[in-house]
């Protein structure tokens, strides 16, 4: 079995600051990390490998520095790592991103032996863009079933059985055939820390494979900006609104004051 894990390098904090003078994003000084949910995806791949045996292939599309997150994935125990990097990929919306990822996966799938199955695992969404769209779009490109928002996963023969969170109170248990794409929630597991030797190996011995548009035989009309249907038309900084009363005094006085106000507001 092959397991593909799609990972994204994201800014290390969820709130990126705006430079008020230039009105641009300030990303300097913010460490780049693996998108947190993608670590859960890696952890799930590792646990499937431990139970059923598999080769884990990590993929990331991004600038050359996204190599960092692939090194981290290798340190956690991923077998191979591919970085899809090319200026032609830049400006991709989710449609173009999922297409590019699918080209790499299809290329690697040529290695698949007869009857060998595969799984694609993604995090349910990235903390910078928050769309959660690449997973389902990638499943469509690969023409395989998808199950999103997975919090529990098991393989039985050629089938997978998962718990999918679809409402606050209800979880649906779904069974489907391999191959499949799943997107995972953070509840599914606790990602392991890389071992010391894992880290050393990842940086000193292991190799990151690079794939560009040419090697992927990508159609220029389907990648990067040209392959994107959506366009950013305008960027703005939202205004804050609201009235405010700051209570003063000792803690006891402030709490007393608050409760009286809330009683007046007919809340308490």
């Amino acid at each position, binding site marked *: 079995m092959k397991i593909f894990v799609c990972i994204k390098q994201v800014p290390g904090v*969820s*709130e*990126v*600051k705006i430079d008020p003078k230039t009105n641009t*994003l300030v990303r300097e000084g913010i460490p780049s990390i693996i998108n*947190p949910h993608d670590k859960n995806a890696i952890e799930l791949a590792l646990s499937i490998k431990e139970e059923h045996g598999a080769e884990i292939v990590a993929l990331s599309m991004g600038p050359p520095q996204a190599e960092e997150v692939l090194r981290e994935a290798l340190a956690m125990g991923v077998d191979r790592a591919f970085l899809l990097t090319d200026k032609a990929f830049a400006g991709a919306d989710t*449609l173009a991103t*999922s297409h590019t990822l699918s080209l790499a996966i299809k290329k690697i799938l040529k290695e698949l032996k*007869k009857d060998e199955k595969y799984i694609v695992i993604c995090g349910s*969404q990235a*903390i*910078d863009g*928050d*769309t*959660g*769209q690449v997973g*389902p779009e990638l*499943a*469509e*490109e690969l*023409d395989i*079933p998808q*199950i*999103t*928002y997975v919090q529990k996963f098991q393989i039985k023969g050629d089938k997978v059985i998962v718990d*999918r*969170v*679809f*409402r*606050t*109170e*209800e*979880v*649906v248990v*779904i*069974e*489907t055939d391999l191959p499949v794409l799943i997107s995972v929630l*953070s*509840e599914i597991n606790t990602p392991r820390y890389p071992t010391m030797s894992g880290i050393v190996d990842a940086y000193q011995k292991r190799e990151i494979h690079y794939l560009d548009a040419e090697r992927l035989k990508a159609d220029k009309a389907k990648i990067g900006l040209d392959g*994107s*249907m*959506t*366009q950013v*038309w305008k*960027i*703005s*900084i*939202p205004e*804050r609104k*609201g009235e405010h*009363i*700051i209570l003063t005094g000792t*803690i006891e006085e402030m*709490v*007393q004051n*608050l*409760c009286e106000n*809330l009683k007046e507001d007919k*809340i*308490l």
Partner: protein
Amino acid sequence: MSIKVDRDLCTGCGSCVNICLYSGIEMIDDIAQITDDCNLCGACVDVCPVEAIILEREKLKIEKMDITQYRGVWVIAEHFKNKIHNVVFQLLGKGRELADILEANLSLVILGANFDNNLEEFSQYGADEIIYIKSSILKDYYSDLYVKTLTELIIEHKPEIILIGATPTGRDFAPRVAKRVNAGLTADCTGLTIDLESRNLLQTRPTFGGNIMATIKTPSSRPQMATVRPGIFKPIKKSKRKVKIKKIDYDYNQKDSVSKIVKIINREKKKINLEEAEIIITGGRGVGSKENFKLIEQLADCLNAEVGGSRVAVELNWIEQDRQVGQTGKTVSPKLYIACGISGAIQHIVGMQGSEIIVAINKDSKAPIFKLAHYGIVGDLQKVIPELIKKIKKIRTEREI
């Protein structure tokens, strides 16, 4: 790709390889396999003696689209246990506004099983038309059946705008439909307006943690698809309207889906949906630890409130993801919202600014949350909350006597 070889049926005769002009199919271990060079011409399908090659023609490749053919606004209904999700009525409210600007029809599209008796009621929310696809299996949500059915409907009716709830269900099928019809899709829109000249939908959404708003458009393709989280828009006032009802029976059965619903189970903890809660207490980074988060829970207990968290609290695993309030979590509008140790990043604020009364407890007097809060307490929440609990309990006891 939408061409497949049924590995069980293929006899390995090789007729397909001989007929193919594009090296689009090859023999691997005596079984035909489609290669990346395949251009879906279908020659191999016709020549295969055992019908082992399946070409699905439902996926249209749309090139140089004539966008003027697309008219009308659609809202896709989501439902569970025969009840339509509130977000659908909210989307109909916004959809009505957009349809009026465009002078186009607003349609509600329902894929379901037992809604015959409810259509009259649904027709009061602003739609001009209800397209009701009826099939007993559609009482539940099947990802692939939704995608297939909606894609077919879109190709047939050509709507220019499709609005979908940004729920786990909507966020499951919307991207896949978008990919299949090659449409642009914008997630979690908080603002939707029309540029009338181009008929483009201007879709505003918070991005990069909510610190900036991006307005997205999809100028060269249709439909323009957008998901919107529950609680963002308001339904219109119910009124009697003349609504065209188009009911179509589909004879789907279990075999038509690759997935099987084994069962639907309740989540372990019985909690009220945050979106429906009257009082919500949330904790953020300032709470300090998972252990300290118990304080938030205690306060919630004595107020009969629900517990929520900021994005940071979720990322630090202090609280589950589905209790997150904010742009990437839930949009809530309770009567009382108490934010503890939450600084008030826009990402958070967009999810709770509709609350009637907002209380903020934070050590940092400069925290932006105080600009939004109706009542602010600058102080250590580890001291403030126990005092608050004590006080509330006292009030409660007084009332009971």
